[in-house]
C-alpha cells in the first residue's frame, strides 16, 4: 500500500462493510472478476483434460494441439467437441473433459448448417442462444464483460494516476503552475471526446495485434478523460494544504514529498474512492457506446456493445440477443452503482444525513 491507513479510514471501511447492499455488490463484483480470470476453464472450446492412450493432456492454457496429437488427420487446432464424441463412440478408454460451455467466443457453431441467430438451447449447451452468425452468446457475453471490466480498471488506474498527479500538483504548488494547467485543462476538456476517439481510431493503422489496438483505444480514451479528476483533486489538495497539520508538518521540516504522500493524499482518499465506481461505469458505458457505433474494440473481439447492436437490429427476430446483452449491462452497472453509493455514504463525515 502506498500509504498507511489512518484509523478514520479504517472506520470508514468498517462502515462500508455494514452497508449490506453495497458490500454484497462489492463481493459479487469481485466474484465476477475472479470467475473472469478463470474463464478459460469454464467457457472455452479447448478441453480441460484429454486422456489419450494413457497420457493426460491439459490443453486449456499454452500451445495449441493439432489434431494429429490425438490421432486425427488434420494439423490445425483440435475440435475437442468432435474429439469427445469420437472417443465416446470408440470406447477405447480415451476420454475428454470439456468445460461447462464448450464454445469459444469467435467460433461459429451451427447444427442447422446455416449461420443465424438461434434461441437458447440448453441441450446444445448454448445457454443464451447464438448471435446472428451462430456464435455462442454466453461465451461472447462473458469474454466481452471481462474485457470491459479489465478495460475499465485499466482506464481507472490510468485516469487516476494522471488526474491525481496533475490535480494534486495544481492544488499543492498553486501559483502559475495552477493557473497554466487550469487553462490547459479548460481547452483540452472542450475537445469533444467521442468525436476525437472516432477520428483517431479510424486513422490508426491496423497492422497491430488486437491487444495493442485495445491498448491504443484505452490510451486515447484516457487522454481525453483525465481532466475531470483534476478538478476534484485540486480543490481537495488546496483545502488540505491550508489545514494546520500541514503547516505543523512544514515547521517540523517535512519535505514536500513527505507532506504530499503522508499527509495530504491520505486525507483526499474519500474523494478518490467516491469517484471510482463512477469512473468505471463511464468507461464501460463509453466502450460499449463506441462498439455500438462500430468504432470500439476491433472485430472479432467479443463486446457488449457489438452484441447490443446486433440485438437492436434483430429486436423482432432474435430478442434473446438484446436481452442477454442488456441484462448483463444492467446487472453490471447496478452493482457498481450500489458499491458507489455505499462508498459515498461510508466516507461521508455527516453520518446521519438523510436525503429526501
Amino acid at each position: 500500500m502506498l500509504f498507511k491507513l489512518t484509523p478514520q479510514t479504517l472506520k470508514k471501511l468498517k462502515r462500508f462493510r455494514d452497508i449490506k447492499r453495497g458490500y454484497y455488490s462489492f463481493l459479487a463484483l469481485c466474484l465476477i472478476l475472479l470467475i473472469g480470470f478463470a474463464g478459460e476453464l469454464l467457457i472455452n472450446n479447448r478441453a480441460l483434460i484429454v486422456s489419450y492412450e494413457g497420457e493426460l493432456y491439459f490443453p486449456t492454457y499454452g500451445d495449441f494441439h493439432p489434431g494429429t496429437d490425438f490421432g486425427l488427420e488434420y494439423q490445425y487446432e483440435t475440435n475437442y467437441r468432435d474429439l469427445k464424441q469420437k472417443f465416446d463412440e470408440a470406447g477405447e478408454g480415451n476420454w475428454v473433459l470439456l468445460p461447462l460451455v464448450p464454445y469459444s467466443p469467435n467460433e461459429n457453431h451451427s447444427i442447422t448448417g446455416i449461420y443465424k441467430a438461434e434461441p437458447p438451447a440448453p441441450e446444445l449447451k448454448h445457454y443464451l442462444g447464438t448471435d446472428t452468425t451462430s456464435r455462442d452468446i454466453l461465451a461472447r457475453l462473458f469474454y466481452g464483460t471481462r474485457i470491459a471490466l479489465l478495460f475499465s480498471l485499466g482506464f481507472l488506474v490510468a485516469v487516476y494516476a494522471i488526474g491525481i498527479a496533475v490535480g494534486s500538483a495544481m492544488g499543492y504548488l498553486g501559483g502559475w503552475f495552477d493557473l497554466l494547467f487550469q487553462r490547459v485543462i479548460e481547452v483540452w476538456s472542450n475537445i469533444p471526446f467521442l468525436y476525437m476517439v472516432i477520428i483517431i481510431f479510424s486513422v490508426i493503422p491496423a497492422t497491430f495485434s488486437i491487444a495493442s489496438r485495445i491498448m491504443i483505444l484505452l490510451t486515447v480514451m484516457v487522454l481525453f478523460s483525465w481532466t475531470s479528476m483534476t478538478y476534484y483533486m485540486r480543490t481537495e489538495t488546496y483545502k488540505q494544504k491550508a489545514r494546520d497539520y500541514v503547516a505543523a508538518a512544514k515547521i517540523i521540516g517535512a519535505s514536500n514529498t513527505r507532506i504530499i504522500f503522508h499527509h495530504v493524499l491520505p486525507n483526499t482518499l474519500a474523494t478518490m474512492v467516491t469517484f471510482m465506481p463512477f469512473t468505471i461505469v463511464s468507461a464501460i458505458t463509453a466502450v460499449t457506446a463506441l462498439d455500438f457505433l462500430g468504432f470500439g474494440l476491433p472485430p472479432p473481439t467479443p463486446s457488449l456493445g457489438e452484441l447490443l447492436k446486433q440485438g437492436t437490429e434483430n429486436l423482432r427476430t432474435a430478442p434473446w440477443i438484446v436481452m442477454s446483452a442488456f441484462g448483463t449491462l444492467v446487472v453490471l452497472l447496478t452493482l457498481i452503482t450500489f458499491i458507489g453509493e455505499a462508498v459515498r455514504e461510508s466516507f461521508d463525515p455527516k453520518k446521519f444525513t438523510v436525503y429526501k
Partner: protein
Amino acid sequence: MKTNISAKFLLASVVCLLAACGGEPEQEQSQPLPEGALTGAEQAREFYAANPDFFSFKTPEDIPENLEWETGLELPEIGSPNATKGGVQYSSIPDFPRTLRIVGPDSNGAFRNWILDNVAVKLAHRHPDEFDFYPGLATAWALEEETKTVYIKLDPDARWSDGEPVTADDYFFLFFFNRSEHIVAPWYNNWYSTQYTNISKYDDYTISLTMPEMDPDIIYNALEHTPTPEHFYDEFGPDYVERYQWRFVPTTGAYYIKDEDIIKGRSVTLTRDENWWAKDKKFWRNRYNADKVHLSVIRDSSKVFESFKVGDLDSFGLTLAEYWYDKLPDSDPDVQAGYIHKSVFYNQRPRPSWGISINSDRELLNNQDIRVGINYATNWDLVIERYFRGEYDRMKTFSDGFGEFSHPTLAARPFDIDLAQEHFAAAGFTQRGPDGVLVNEQGQRLSFTLTTGAEPLAAVFTILREEALKAGLEYRIEILDGSAAFKKVLEKQHDVYFGAFGRFLEFYPRFWDELHSDNAYDDAFLDDGSVNPDRQIKVQTNNLQSFANFEVDQLIAQYDSSTDVEEMISLAHEIFERHHEYASFVPAYVVPFYRVGHWRWMKFPEGFNHKHSESAGELFVHWIDTELKEETLAARRSGDTFEPQINVYDQFRSEN
C-alpha cells in the same frame, strides 16, 4: 487514357469524400452577377470559337450519303401495357441529398439515381432485354467507321421539363460545360477533353460525335449522353458550385422536382410531368407511372424495414437472406394474408467484383506460392453455404457476367487446407507457432491485415479468419469506414483488401485499370521487358493487386486496340487465365438475383422485370394501383385476406 466508367464512379466518390461536409443548404439568395458578366451561352460561343477543331458548324449537305441508319424501333417494348398512371410511390433515401446539381462536388451520391441515372432520357439506351440500343432523345444514329464518327438525328419532340426544346445547342453546351473548370470536376474535364475529338452540328436536330479510337462499343460512348440545358445556365461562372447547389436542373425525363417539394433534411418529392414529351413513345409509354414519388429520409435500415412493414413505404429490398427468411418470412401474417408480396428475380448482367485483392507488391505477398495458398485458405465456399445460405454463387474471375467475354471454364480455387499448406510450405512456411499460425525459418508469421470498408459483412470476416487459421494463415481484420478503407487501398497501403468495383452494363470487361502495369508502378518494366529495379508503386489507381506482367500488358494493349470481337474474346480469356495463375485475387461471390417485398398495390409487369435490370425500381416499370391500395387497406382493417404471393421469376436464371 483508356475509357473506364467504374473509375469515374470511384474517383468521383473520392472527390465527394474530399469535399465532404459541404455547406448548409441555406444559400437560396445567390449573389447578383457582376455587371457585364456573360451568360453561359455566350461563354460557350466564345469557347466554340476558340476551339474550332473540336466544335464544327456544318450544313446538312455535309452528312455522308451512304450511312446505315439505325433506329432501334424493332426492339420490344419495355414495361407492361397493363400499367396505369397515377398514385404516389413512397420510397426512402438514407441521406438527404447534399446538392441538386448533377456534376461537381457531392453530386455523385445515391440521390443522383432519382434525378439523373434512372430518370433522365439519354440519346439512346441499352435495351434491358436485348442489349441493343433503343431510342431516347435520338431517333436514328449511324456509324462511319473510317472517320470514327457517329451521326445522330435528334427527336424534334424532345423538351426539357421547363418546356424548352432540346436541340443540338444543348449537346454543344454539354461539352463546354463539362470541360469548364467552374464545375470542379477534374474527371469530367479530362473525360470530355480526351474521349472525344469533335462534335458537329448540321442543323438544329442533327449532330455527329467523333472519337479517337474505334472501340467495339463506340456507339455506346456516343449515345450514352444526356445533354446539358444551355438556357438554364445563364448565371454560369466561377461560383457555379454554390450558385446552383439547390437548383433543380431541367430534365429530359418524366420526373421533375418542384421547389416546394424539397423539405430540407426530411423529404424530396418527384412529380411526373403530365405533358412529358416521351409519354407516348414506344419505349417509354409504359414506364414512370406513379404521379409522384415521395422520398423520405430514413437513415437506419431497420427503421426503413419497420416503415415498410406498417405500410408507409411501398417496397423493401429483401436480397439479404436475413430479411427474406427471418425478418419477413413466408409465414409472416402480412405475407400470408396476401397484403405483402415477395418476389425473387434472377437477372443477368456484369457482376460487381466482390473479392479479396492481394497487394502483390508487399513482402511475402510477392511470392506466388503464398498467394495461391491464400486462395486455397480462404473459405468463401463455407461463407456462401452457411452465411449466405447457399443462395449466392461463387465468383469465378474478377469480371464475371460478361457473356462470351467471361472465361468459360476458369473457376475460383476451392477451400483446401492440404493444398494451402503445400503452397505455404513451398514458400518456407512449414512450422506452426504456438497459436497455430505458420512461421518460417526467420520467425515471420504468416499473418496479413485484411482491410475492408464493408462493415455490414463483419461477421463474414470472422468466419474467414477462423477458417484460414486451420490452414495456418492469420487474417487480422481491419474494418474501416467505407471511404477511409478505400482511401487506404488507393494509397496501396493494404496487405489484402476486400471490396468490389461496380460493373456497368457494358459489352466487354475492361482490364487496363485493374491489371495494367501502368497502374501498378511508375515505369514497371525496362524496354526489354525485364522488371525495372527502381520502380515505384503508383498510388491512386484501381490496380489494387499491384499486378504487373509485361506480357499481360501487351495483351491488354492488343485487346484495347482490337476491333474484332472474336479476337477480343480470345484475348480476354487469355488475360483471365494469366490473372488466375498469378492468384492475386480471391474471387468471393456473385448475387445472381434481387429480391423485394412489396405491398399488394405496387404492381410489376408479368415477368416482373427485364433481363439486365439491376434492381426492381431501376427501370420504373412498376405502377401503383390506387384502387387496390384502398381495397388492401380496408381489408387490413376488416381482417379480409387474399391469396399469398411469393413468386420466383427465374426465366433469366443462368449458371453464373
